[in-house]
């Protein structure tokens, strides 16, 4: 019985550590940072307030669902003007740019994108007063997009 209990404890710990890893903020590499900095210079980017959801594992990079939302009251005084999506491992890392009017009510977009490779993608939101926020998400691709020849 005691042997079983130890296993159970270990399993629980293993599960917990996975959960903890999920909660840790995604670290960006120097190259990923440089890409983002090429757009935003040395402006302060706060790494919070953005929810970026992509599957952690995708079988096919040709069509990966993506959802991004920036926290904002979306009033005329305080709203998100744009969200830019970066996929650093794609041949063209600029995935898309979304612009919003305050009348959108919510700065949220769902779409489907291509990933040439496993990568950490980042969304940067610009507020109407110029503040910047970012969020990242990591997706592992088992079969990449863009590389296969068209037959």
């Amino acid at each position, binding site marked *: 019985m005691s042997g079983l209990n130890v296993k159970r404890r270990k399993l629980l710990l293993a599960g917990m550590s996975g959960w903890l890893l999920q909660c840790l903020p995604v670290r960006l590499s120097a190259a990923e940072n440089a890409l983002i900095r090429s757009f935003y210079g040395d402006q302060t980017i706060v790494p919070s307030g953005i929810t970026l959801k992509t599957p952690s594992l995708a079988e096919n990079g040709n069509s990966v669902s993506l959802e991004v939302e920036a926290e904002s009251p979306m009033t005329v005084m305080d709203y998100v003007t744009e969200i830019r999506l970066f996929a650093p491992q794609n041949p*063209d890392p600029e995935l*898309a740019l979304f*612009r*919003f*009017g305050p*009348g959108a009510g919510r700065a949220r977009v769902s*779409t489907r*994108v*291509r990933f040439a490779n496993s990568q950490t993608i980042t969304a940067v939101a610009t507020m109407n007063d110029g503040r910047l926020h970012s969020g990242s998400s990591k997706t592992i691709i088992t079969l990449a997009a863009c590389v296969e*020849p068209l037959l």
Partner: protein
Amino acid sequence: MSEAPESMTLKVRISLPESVAANDIVEVKTLVSHPMESGFRLNGMGEGIPRNILSRFFVTYRGEMIFETIFGPGVAANPYIAFSLRATESGEVRFLWEQQNGEVTEVVRQLAVL
């Protein structure tokens, strides 16, 4: 005529409720038929397939800009875009898709706000 640049009529599907309560935020879902050829792929002969993508998707509600997408080649074929809209008063929602050759497809829907 066969030498004319290819013209594609976009097939568009929009999901927008006909009527909503005032101040409700509704999710508007759109789907448009387009290959979104990235320009990075090769054909069977090893030749590059030229880029052919949508450049822009623009939405106004009662004359005001609500949402816009500037596409990169990394948006998947047959782009699906869902975004939000806060209903204020009854009025027109205009959807406009622009292809890289400048061709424009426009769809207008009425939204009744109760």
